[in-house]
């Protein structure tokens, strides 16, 4: 088989929709869960442990017939800060975007303070992003800091 065909076989092209590329492999399943892809009914192709010069191993998600909003996509910035978003129309990339860390985050991650109300009662976490480069979050409830190294899915 030709090399070109091999590549195409890995993840088939989509006609219309959203492609999320450059997801670190270890974050792929978190990204799937944050975007709640399991609830979608359109065709979704997921690639896992692809080789990537930049990331080592990467994941890729192709969602057919669905155009996710930038706001929704920004939610994955905590786990896939270098993700590239391609909007596909008629098999062509018509738009390329990057994800941006939002100013505030609800849900998604846990507060790292075990004594925080969000870890003791059924309360959704809310954070203010106080540093975007090395993402640092301040809990709106206990006012403690959660940093990148301690991100854990809520």
């Amino acid at each position, binding site marked *: 088989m030709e090399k070109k065909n091999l590549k195409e076989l890995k993840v088939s092209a989509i006609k219309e929709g959203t492609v999320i590329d450059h997801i670190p492999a270890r974050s792929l399943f978190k990204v799937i869960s944050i975007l709640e892809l399991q609830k979608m009914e359109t065709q979704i192709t997921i690639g896992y442990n692809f080789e990537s010069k930049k990331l080592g191993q990467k994941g890729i998600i192709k969602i057919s017939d669905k155009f996710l909003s930038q706001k929704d996509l920004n939610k994955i910035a905590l786990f896939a800060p270098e993700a590239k978003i391609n909007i596909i129309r008629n098999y062509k990339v018509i738009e390329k975007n990057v994800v941006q860390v939002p100013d505030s985050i609800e849900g998604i991650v846990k*507060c790292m*303070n075990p*004594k*925080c*109300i*969000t870890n*003791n*009662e*059924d*309360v959704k976490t809310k954070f203010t992003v106080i540093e975007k480069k090395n993402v640092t979050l301040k*809990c*709106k*409830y*206990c*006012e*403690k*800091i959660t940093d990148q190294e301690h991100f854990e899915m809520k």
Partner: protein
Amino acid sequence: MKNKSLVSIHDYSKTDYLRIMDLAEEFERNPRNYGNLLTGKVVATLFFEPSTRTRLSFESAVQRLGGRIIGFADSSSSSVSKGETLKDTIKTVSQYSDLIVMRHPIEGSARWASEVSDVPIVNAGDGANQHPTQCLLDLYTMKQTQGKLDNLIITMVGDLKYGRTVHSLIQAMLYFSPSFHFVSPEELKMPNEYKMFLKEKKIPFKEHHDLSEVLKISDIIYVTRVQRERFSDPIEYEKVKNAFVLKNSMLEDTKPGLKILHPLPRVNEINEDVDTNKKAYYFRQALNGVYTRMAIISSILGLK
């Protein structure tokens, strides 16, 4: 401030601080004029963990303004012990009252309560997080004793690592160009995040291991309790427990206007022979807590 919860010192601006202090002063000057201010109002004091001093201070404040009180002094006697969520307790009690004062061991519980309550919440301590009325009464006391809040030299002594009151005070004093001296055992030093905060805001501070170095230059000495359970090594506690005790003899040659504050309860960090010194102000500070809480409650209820 009207109808707004007071959960954290960050909820109030400098203007709010000054307004509360002015109002507290008015209540202190003319207590008889306000005996009916809260007539017809019900304030709930929900203490999910006991703190007799704080609860009595709030209840005294409400009573002096003519309001009524419902509530509990610890959660073992309430529906909480039957497994009710905080949300349900707060939502229910907010139907019975015009304002809820709450103390709870879980950090962030007061913010959560303010989101689910139908009436304003005043945080009377949420674990190690916030206790804003203590901070406001400390500000009021400093202003009262020094005639101003600007440019004071404040020495903080004792447990500066876990002491919630000293952390809040540092942040609230930001508006009043203070300088700080921190005196503590090595294990209980002021945490880095607060030192970074001071550096960022260009507020001068210095750390010391010996109290005698700074007594003479201070306007305020703010003493906090050093608790045995804070030490990983009990021998370490035994070594330092007497090193930071303030005695009357040490107060010679200090500034005439110096005042000694303590959030109470005290154990042995201020010797009892200091109590009769005019510079001892901690019991008066406790009284100021009542005036400050009167000011906070009546502001939130929109009555002043």
